[in-house]
């Protein structure tokens, strides 16, 4: 019997013919017709026109035909909701069928039809099926609850299905238990705070029992669920580990990885001196190694996970270097991952073997792999000092091969080796110089120029070499230009007599003929340094460089901890937290490892490899591009240091002010304002304080002068799904009296975006863009660009609701998108808002009581001086201070961009809260502030 013929009907009037066949009396013909319909559906043809005819075939005893009709229904019910109702009766009837397979089929299919009306009818049959006598029906019904929850969460809660589902965890059939666990885990993900799974020692015990009995897939569901449990103490932790370890011998790699996840997590709680701890460590290695004999795709998943495990607990696999040696016919993705792990495991003990391998790899075919291998040799040199000499000579051998990309990559890593071991291997410079002509990649050219500049005094013809680069100066990439500029200045400082002409030439090229501001600026700085104070220039340019770190590409410890909790999942494959690639509420929950056992012993046991990342994690080297771009070639400067914007984390007292209209103040509702969402979770109770006034004041305990107004972290304003792939997040800042809107534009679509423009609707304070939106280069897929848009307050005014609402339109080559956001009122507080004392007194009296508002701010532990300092950072000025009955009173003034004044009296009570009394020259506006300390 062949079904392929169904794929070949392409005649015209096909739908019409099918219709006739579907209504045929002959059962066989009907079935044939339905098969044709399904085949068309598969290849993407629209056969929804046949809906009523297909549904008519549903009433049949033939189970095969029924399944086909159901398949059709699942696909098209959503587009024909009214017609779908026709099917309900059959479903309800089937749910009562004597054959459990049919009951299960009906309930399974019904859950897949996402039509509200059908969902209503689903409840009763589902309730029955959840208590069905047959386990096959129950296990199907358990999953159906999750389906229903996906369509209508409220309905599931109202109907009490969650409780029934919880009961199924105690079911006698292991598969029912497994499916119930899977369904509950999924539902719990969308209710982060609910105690839905309610894991306690009793339920855990039930799960562990079911673990021994259910299918391989069920074991995965249960293990993944176990991983989210937090044992009460180390004893419970150990007993769970003991019952999970047998899973490490399962043939299914996913079972093994999920078991590894549970063990890695619970191991945190075990004291290190425990014998069992050591046993467990030993037990983990063999299964991980076995995973490498699985199919290549699984090997890849395993290797990505091993990469994490090696960073977290290097001791587990430190003796297993050999299994990560690359095989000749491994797929490229496996090769690259293995190489990564080899570098991580490299140590003095195995370095000879590793180097021999790496040398072999450097002669392979795949360019990416070869480059990575060469780079790995350099990494070994930096990591294991004893091997440095061997590495350098290996690299020299590779340079002799004259293979272009090998040579270039080798030069880039040799530069790093020079940095790590100064004055040791400079003898090889001559060999490097021979290859000057073959370098065509910017990174390699820049590295070579750095070497020439750095060791100019030892290279006789350094000036000639650098001069040769100078000829095509304008055709070089920025990286090379900057490097060349610095190198020539270094050369000049070392050999001033012969190179004066050269340095002048490069300075003029950089400052006069270049339109790159970075290059020009650096040129000017050198020029002035050299002309005013050559000694200072020497100190700056030839400064001692800090050492570079041994470990590279380490994952940041908190992220690593989170990823360990996600072993086996996509997050561990991408090395990104789920929130980075999952849409909506799912997976946004951040998972943590349980707190370390025995806080007293934070040091690793002595047999741990020298690279235990748990304490004082080595700094992560920024990528090569940043290294060379740095002005003084101080490779360790973090890339953020060059960003001129004010970093929230750098502020001593960060502050966010949010004003609202008087009405909203009295209504006490600030739900959804940006400052609330941006608040650290530890301050969870704050929004309720002060009658819902959202000005919060994060005082990290510092007393220094405030350095500027608080800038809230960026929040997402425009979701990619609503804007054809363009995602915009942003925040507002006031910097040096200029209001700025900081935007991050991300292209999540698959095509390039260009032609950006922005416009604001009229708003309460007349905010308007002071210039065009500067997106100079097209935004390619998955690229993010940060722009700062200066704002003026001279635009048209219209009162908005709420007052600080701003409606924005952004245009690109695809479409125009609209969103609204709210800005903190503190944005509008001008720098000259300090009122004269006398004027303050007079104004205070003049303001009618109608314009006054009072509120309390709780849980602030600050004295008045600190508070006033913080507030001044946001242009809230303290005019006077008084002490009445041991309470400090502050009198403050604020001026808005439109000239409105706000006056405040603040009483700091010994009780940790503040009383604030506000008066305003304009009845519509009142600001509020809320001080909050951690």
């Amino acid at each position, binding site marked *: 019997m062949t079904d392929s013929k169904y794929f070949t009907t392409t005649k015209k009037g096909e739908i019409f013919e099918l219709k006739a066949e579907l209504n045929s009396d002959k059962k066989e013909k009907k079935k044939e017709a339905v098969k044709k319909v399904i085949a068309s559906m598969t290849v993407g043809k629209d056969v929804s026109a046949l809906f009523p005819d297909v549904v008519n075939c549903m009433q049949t005893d033939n189970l095969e035909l029924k399944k086909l009709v159901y398949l059709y229904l699942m696909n098209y019910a959503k587009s024909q909701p009214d017609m779908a109702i026709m099917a309900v009766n059959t479903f309800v009837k089937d749910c009562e069928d004597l054959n459990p397979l049919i009951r299960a089929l009906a309930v399974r299919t019904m859950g897949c039809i996402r039509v509200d009306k059908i969902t209503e009818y689903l409840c009763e049959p589902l309730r029955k099926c959840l208590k069905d006598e047959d386990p096959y029906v129950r296990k199907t019904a358990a*999953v159906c609850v999750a389906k229903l929850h996906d369509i209508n969460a409220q309905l599931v809660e109202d109907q009490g299905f969650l409780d029934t589902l919880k009961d199924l965890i105690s079911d006698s059939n292991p*598969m029912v238990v497994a499916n119930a666990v899977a369904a509950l885990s999924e539902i719990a993900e969308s209710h982060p705070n609910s105690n839905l799974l309610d894991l306690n020692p009793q339920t855990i015990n039930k799960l562990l029992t079911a673990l021994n009995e259910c299918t391989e897939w069920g074991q995965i569901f249960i293990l993944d669920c176990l991983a989210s449990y937090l044992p009460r103490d180390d004893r419970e932790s150990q007993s769970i580990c003991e019952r999970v370890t047998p899973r490490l011998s399962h043939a299914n790699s996913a079972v093994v990885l999920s078991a590894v996840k549970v063990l890695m997590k619970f191991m945190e709680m075990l004291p290190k001196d425990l014998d069992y701890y050591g046993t467990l460590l030993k037990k983990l290695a063999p*299964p991980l190694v076995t995973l490498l004999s699985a199919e290549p795709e699984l090997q890849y*998943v395993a290797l990505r996970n091993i990469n994490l495990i090696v960073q977290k607990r290097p001791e587990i696999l430190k003796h297993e270097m050999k299994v990560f040696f690359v095989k000749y016919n491994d797929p490229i993705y496996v090769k690259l991952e293995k190489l990564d792990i080899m570098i991580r495991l490299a140590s003095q003990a195995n370095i000879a073997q590793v180097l021999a391998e790496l040398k072999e790899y450097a002669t392979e075919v795949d360019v990416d792999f070869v480059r990575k291998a060469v780079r790995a040799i350099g990494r070994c040199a930096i990591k294991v000092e004893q091997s440095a000499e061997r590495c350098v000579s290996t690299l020299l051998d590779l340079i002799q091969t004259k293979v272009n990309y090998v040579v270039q990559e080798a030069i880039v890593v040799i530069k790093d080796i020079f940095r790590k071991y100064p004055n040791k291997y400079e003898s090889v410079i001559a060999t490097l110089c021979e290859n000057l002509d073959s370098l065509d990649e910017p990174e390699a050219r820049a590295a070579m120029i750095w070497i020439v500049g750095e060791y100019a005094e030892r290279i006789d013809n350094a000036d000639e070499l650098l001069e040769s680069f100078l000829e095509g100066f304008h055709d070089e990439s920025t990286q090379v230009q900057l490097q060349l500029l610095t190198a020539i200045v270094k050369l000049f400082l070392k050999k001033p007599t012969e190179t004066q002409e050269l340095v002048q030439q490069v300075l003029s090229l950089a400052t006069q003929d270049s339109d790159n501001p970075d290059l020009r600026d650096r040129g000017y700085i050198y020029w002035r340094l050299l002309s005013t104070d050559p000694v200072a220039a020497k100190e700056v340019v030839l400064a001692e460089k800090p050492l570079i770190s041994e470990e590279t590409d380490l994952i940041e410890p908190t992220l690593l901890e989170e990823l360990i909790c996600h072993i086996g999942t996509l997050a561990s*494959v991408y090395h990104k937290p789920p929130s980075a690639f999952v849409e909506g509420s799912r997976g946004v929950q951040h998972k943590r490892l349980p707190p370390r056992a025995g806080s007293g012993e934070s040091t690793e046991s002595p047999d741990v490899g020298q690279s235990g990342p748990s304490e004082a994690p080595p700094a992560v080297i920024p990528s090569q591009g940043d290294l060379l771009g740095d002005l003084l070639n101080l490779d360790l400067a973090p890339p953020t240091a060059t960003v001129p914007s004010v970093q929230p984390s750098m502020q001593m007292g960060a502050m966010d002010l949010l004003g609202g209209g008087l009405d909203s103040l009295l209504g006490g509702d600030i739900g959804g304002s940006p400052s609330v969402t941006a608040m650290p979770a530890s301050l969870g109770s704050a929004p309720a304080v002060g009658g819902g006034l959202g000005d919060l004041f994060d005082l990290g305990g510092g007393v220094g002068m405030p350095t500027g107004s608080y800038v809230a972290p960026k929040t997402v304003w425009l979701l990619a799904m609503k804007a054809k792939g363009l995602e915009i997040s942003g925040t507002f800042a006031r910097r040096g009296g200029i209001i700025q809107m900081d935007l991050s534009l991300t292209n999540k679509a698959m095509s390039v975006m260009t032609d950006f423009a922005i416009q604001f609707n009229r708003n309460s304070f007349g905010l308007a863009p002071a210039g065009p939106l500067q997106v100079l280069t097209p935004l390619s897929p998955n690229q993010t660009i940060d722009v700062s848009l200066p704002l003026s307050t001279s635009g048209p005014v219209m009162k908005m609701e709420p007052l600080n609402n701003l409606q924005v339109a952004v245009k690109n080559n695809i479409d125009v998108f609209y969103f609204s956001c709210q800005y903190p009122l503190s944005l509008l507080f001008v720098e000259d808002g300090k009122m004269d004392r006398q004027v303050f007194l007079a104004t205070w009296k003049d303001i009618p009581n109608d314009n006054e508002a009072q509120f309390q701010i709780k849980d602030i532990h600050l004295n008045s001086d600190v508070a006033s300092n913080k507030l001044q950072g946001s242009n809230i000025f303290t005019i006077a201070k008084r002490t009445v009955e041991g309470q400090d009173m502050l009198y403050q003034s604020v001026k808005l961009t439109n000239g409105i004044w706000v006056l405040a009296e603040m009483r700091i009570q010994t009780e940790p809260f503040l009383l604030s009394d506000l008066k305003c020259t304009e009845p519509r506006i009142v600001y509020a502030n809320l001080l909050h300390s951690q």
Partner: protein
Amino acid sequence: MIGGLFIYNHKGEVLISRVYRDDIGRNAVDAFRVNVIHARQQVRSPVTNIARTSFFHIKRSNIWLAAVTKQNVNAAMVFEFLYKMCDVMTAYFGKISEENIKNNFVLIYELLDEILDFGYPQNSETGALKTFITQQGIKGQPQTKEEQSQITSQVTGQIGWRREGIKYRRNELFLDVLESVNLLMSPQGQVLSAHVSGRVVMKSYLSGMPECKFGMNDKIVIDKQGKGGTTDDPGKSGKQSIAIDDCTFHQCVRLSKFDSERSISFIPPDGEYELMRYRTTKDIILPFRVIPLVREVGRTKLEVKVVIKSNFKPSLLAQKIEVRIPTPLNTSGVQVICMKGKAKYKASENAIVWKIKRMAGMKESQISAEIELLPTNDKKKWARPPISMNFEVPFAPSGLKVRYLKVFESKLNYSDHDVIKWVRYIGRSGIYETRC
């Protein structure tokens, strides 16, 4: 969980498309075709993220299978499931090919409906599935109630891999110990890495629900028995036992029992299946040793001499021996002389292939070749790929021995002695390479 599952042919046409979750749209089908199947380069990662949708893909001959999701799924599980899906399809209709898939698309949809519910894998044991999903539609519609509940309890039950009431006139079982021995050796004869990955494959034709116990010369078990004061000479048994680095078992094996007592007990599926996999790295018997000698004579000539030595009992015979000696790309001509077997230069494969049908243990054979090269101005030196070898030997290179396989069936009246048992050892070359 899995949001959808698509099967494509090599041109990127959809053969099967089953969507389980609302967040996966039809455009996902096209995105994968455009970004992965039609991409000219080789696959750089088996997981591809396109516009926030993740695609897990594997390829079987010309057919692509892709599982799609937008959530943080268990990645290992998705791949295991895809492999399982292939197994199930193969068990139903043989080779996975475009034609077979088109011919059985109704069946595949039925299977997909059963083994994946809302993206959660369900029971996927072919033994169980075949009881109620057949190519002839559901087996005889008017089933008895007992039959129905037997099916459902098997599908959901603890022993989902075996049905009740199996009967054979002759109770028989076949055990195959299949090993592949892997080696990477330096030109100087130093073992860089060597391991054996082995499988115990069992074909069981046993009546009822037999309880089986499998024993082998596992060092841990034998040492334990030695300590227990049995009559075995500890020195002797220690020598014969092997150290197993790690092993994994078919889901029928009671893992907790293995963990606590290291005994392998199970109720076997009917027919053929893989009981266990294991890996050893210590005391491996390397059946062959390859000694290469490559000499460059000037710029246009290479002299190659390779000696192979067999290293096992002289009474045993190795078969299907093949030695592959790579030649440079600019080879213009090759002259070969070998003592035994046949050797040929295959220009299309850039290698000299030397085949020997049979070779006894403790023997030695040699090939010498003169390779003439065209002068080139290619700067890149020829990266000498390793010399690889294929063979088959009738013993287990790891040293593994089956000690017993006991069968107990209390309800039926046959005992362990009535079962006819066959054991066979086959050692094959995995990646068996010597650098030159």
